[in-house]
């Protein structure tokens, strides 16, 4: 039987260490909504999402009340829209109409984000993929809750450098079109390599074609809990340190597994996966950078950071895997800048730069995330950054992503405020040397030799 100290421990995690379930994300296939008429497609999308997800938010809140665990976000991911709109969309504007439909239905069912305004173009782009990509700046400027993503490479296919080049432009255009909101559109646009089909976390969530008609995926969190556990063992060696992280990750993940099973049963939608990511928020103490400091670094970014993060990431997975029947999504520590107070402090202290963040992305999920850069950064430089991250993902057989925000009208020394869970960020300097000849070559970077396993 449960004893009082266990009850106190759990409730302390929830009340004082920011333990929460970060998101319940319902993945919905929209493949059967496709038609040769944009308006009919939009109607089909509206009807299907309303039918499946109208109880999602209420169910999430009921579960949160009964178990006493906050469930921060209730969200939806859908089939990459470039596939759904392929038969009906003839112009980027047609795709924007679908985006507006998604935005309306998201508001009506009460979710704060809907992901899947996406194209998977890791090897090549169809005409409809390209139309969707070209519609992203307008779609993000004219909607509130849409998240867009484009997968530009994979270990199996190599990197589609035409798409990388195009995405440099698209990120820049999105920044310009949302300049009145500090280029907020770019915070909802992510460029991925090796994107998983079942990721519940925004902005990169979409419901891949390998998935069932509808599915419940859950993202857990808990950097604050790990930090607190490590604060209790300041002088421990690596063995004890790793053991502590594993045990904590196990406990966090079990809560996610319980919530996922409960949501799945109540909504009548199968359970998909638990995403084991350590996802920070701007709340004090809910920080991955703080964990790195607890492990023994003066600031995130100090020598040793990559090793500490690699160890943290691995232990979180080892503890979490045993706690859930199905693990998937991104599953690793997130290192966004604007959403993590410790990372912001490290940047402001001069301890952390983009190059070190890039190195850190080699050993954890996901990539250069929520990094504000000067608005004058060129599209080709952004494409070069995307190419670098994609190469890391491709060669290391892992997901990598770029979500950077060239904030129009701001430069190094300025601060940009996105609000809410997106937080705020100091503008970080970008290497100013030119890479345009490289990114303008066109074509594909071939798949690496170790991808040929057949």
């Amino acid at each position, binding site marked *: 039987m449960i004893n009082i100290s266990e009850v106190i421990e*759990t409730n302390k995690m929830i009340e004082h260490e920011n333990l929460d379930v970060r998101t319940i994300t319902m993945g919905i296939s929209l493949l059967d909504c496709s038609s040769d008429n944009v308006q009919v497609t939009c109607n089909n999308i509206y009807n299907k999402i309303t039918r499946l997800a109208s109880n999602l938010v209420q169910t999430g809140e009921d579960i949160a009340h009964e178990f*006493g665990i906050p469930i921060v976000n209730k969200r939806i991911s859908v089939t990459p829209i470039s596939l759904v709109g392929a038969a009906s969309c003839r112009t980027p504007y047609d795709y924007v109409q679908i985006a507006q439909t998604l935005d309306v239905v998201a508001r009506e069912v009460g979710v704060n984000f809907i992901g899947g305004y996406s194209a998977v173009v890791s090897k090549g782009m169809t005409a409809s993929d390209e139309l969707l990509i070209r519609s992203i700046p307008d779609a993000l400027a004219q909607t509130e809750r849409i998240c867009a993503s484009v997968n530009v490479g994979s270990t199996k296919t190599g990197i589609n450098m035409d798409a990388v080049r195009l995405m440099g432009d698209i990120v820049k255009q999105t920044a310009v079109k949302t300049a009145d909101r500090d280029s907020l559109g770019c915070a909802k646009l992510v460029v991925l390599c090796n994107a998983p089909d079942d990721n519940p976390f925004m902005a990169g969530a979409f419901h891949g074609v390998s998935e069932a008609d509808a599915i419940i995926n859950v993202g857990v969190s808990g950097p604050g809990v790990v930090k607190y556990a490590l604060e209790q063992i300041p002088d421990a060696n690596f063995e004890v340190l790793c053991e502590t992280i594993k045990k904590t990750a196990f*406990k966090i993940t*079990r*809560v996610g*597994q*319980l919530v996922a099973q409960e949501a799945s049963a109540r909504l009548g939608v199968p359970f998909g996966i638990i995403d084991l990511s350590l996802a920070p928020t701007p709340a004090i103490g809910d920080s991955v950078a703080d964990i790195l400091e607890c492990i023994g670094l003066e600031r995130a970014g100090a020598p040793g950071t990559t090793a500490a993060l690699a160890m943290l990431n691995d232990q979180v997975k080892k503890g979490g895997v045993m706690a859930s029947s199905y693990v998937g999504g991104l599953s690793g520590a997130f290192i966004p800048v604007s959403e993590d107070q410790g990372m912001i402090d490290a940047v402001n202290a001069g301890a952390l730069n983009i190059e070190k963040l890039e190195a850190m992305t080699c050993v954890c999920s996901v990539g250069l995330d929520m990094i504000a850069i000067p608005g004058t950064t060129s599209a080709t430089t952004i494409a070069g950054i995307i190419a670098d991250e994609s190469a890391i993902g491709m060669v290391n057989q892992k997901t990598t992503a770029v979500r950077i925000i060239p904030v129009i009208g701001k430069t190094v020394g300025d601060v940009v405020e996105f609000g809410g869970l997106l937080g705020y960020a100091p503008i970080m300097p970008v290497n100013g040397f030119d890479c345009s000849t490289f990114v303008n070559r066109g074509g594909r970077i071939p798949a690496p030799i170790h991808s040929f396993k057949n």
Partner: protein
Amino acid sequence: MNRTIITVVGKDTVGIIAAVCTYLAEHNINILDISQTIVQEFFNMMMIVDISKYEGKFDEMAEQLRLIGDEKGVQVKCQREDIFDKMHRI
């Protein structure tokens, strides 16, 4: 059996357990176990109760008990036992 954990945290005052138990008795909720401890000068009590014969909604019970706690100046929480079981038992 439908087991729920009720926790009471706050400054120790007269009649906390009586007030909670009266509510439980009136609503056909059976107490299976009670334990209490003092942590950092705060009174912590935990009850394991069976709510299978309770006919109302979980939310209503949680809200009523929270109000009883407010009257006494303590925090009362109701949570289904599964969250603790899952976290602390393999």
